[in-house]
């Protein structure tokens, strides 16, 4: 089933998160928004975090390179990394076509649901993107 981008939450730094309950635990699936991927223009490298790493909301969890520019990825939520999309760094050319399904990067077991409150809904995120040009 395809993810509906209008139902996702977004960080100001362009990561999306899809919150769902898995085995009674809150799990956030995280990726990069279509807008960000368009701006990044042809990713050539991506570095992923290790499984089990504890992240705090706003903390760097990976890095990408495009047009000789290295940019950090920031976790929108606090919690433990429970899954990593290991195939993604070798398939970056597919990301732009499918940022919300194939393009998931990590899954995080959310430890602090308060960290979600500062995230943007789709409408607010769209407004931010429009202002960023």
């Amino acid at each position, binding site marked *: 089933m395809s993810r509906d981008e209008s139902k996702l939450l977004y960080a100001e730094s*362009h990561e999306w998160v899809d919150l769902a309950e898995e085995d009674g635990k809150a799990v956030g699936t995280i990726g990069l928004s279509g807008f960000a991927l368009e701006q*990044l223009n042809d990713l050539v*490298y991506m570095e992923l975090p290790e499984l089990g790493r504890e992240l705090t909301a706003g903390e760097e969890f990976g890095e990408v*390179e495009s*047009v*000789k*520019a*290295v940019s950090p990825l920031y976790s929108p939520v606090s919690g433990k990394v429970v899954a990593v999309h290991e195939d993604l760094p070798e398939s970056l050319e597919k990301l732009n076509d499918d940022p919300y399904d194939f393009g998931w990067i990590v899954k995080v077991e959310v430890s602090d649901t308060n960290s979600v409150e500062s995230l943007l809904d789709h409408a607010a995120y769209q407004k931010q993107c429009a202002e*960023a040009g």
Partner: protein
Amino acid sequence: MMNTRTVSGASFGLTIGRVISLATAGAAENMAIDQAILDSVTRTGVPVLRFYQWAQPTLSLGYFQRLAARSAHAQSEPVGCVRRTTGGGAIVHDRELTYSLTIPVPAGAAGPRSVLYQQTHASIADALADFGIHAVPFCRTGVEPRLESQNSQFLCFQRRTAEDLIVSGYKVLGSAQRKSRSAVLQHGSLLLCTSLYAPQLPGINDLLSTPVTAEQLVPQIVENLSESLGVEWREGSLSNQEIIDADQICRERFDSSLWTARR
């Protein structure tokens, strides 16, 4: 000579920035100072422009390059190696002028700051024009970029991206970036003369009859970057905090073999 200073883009209005005079340092120290400045601009929002050269010929790897890829370029094997935090290919830093420009970026800005590549390179092209050197961005040479030239070449100066400056068919200036949450560091190398350790790459003085020095170019570049970015550059130096940070970053990262060999 065509004026290339026509790029519209980032402008700070009437902002004061700090320019740090041309100096020579070791490879790890140079990279650590740039990182300390990025951290500082992230905190303060005050732009910093810096010019430097390298105490010893050094190979710098792009952030994502593998150390083992050095074997692809035998001529540079005798020189030391440092890993940058910026992207792109490897550079033999020897007889060159290096600049770093670090500016604040708006919250929520995504992706590489293409305009910054354009503005900086246009300012350097105009400075070169004052010395009779006709440099143009690769995207305006009419040469089609070859896919294999983008990332498969080990050396940055054997790759081509749109804003690289080209003189007589040779790439003489390439730059790369590193973003933080609210700032971007862009540094780049202008080849002045061919290095013994990269003999296939001519510098501007190998393509000219009258040599130009880094000292001659810097004031002109500063003036052009003042105009194009809308920044009044004032002579300054590293702050005490930046010196302390750079020293720590140098020891923990750029001078560490673990960092260099991390890929």
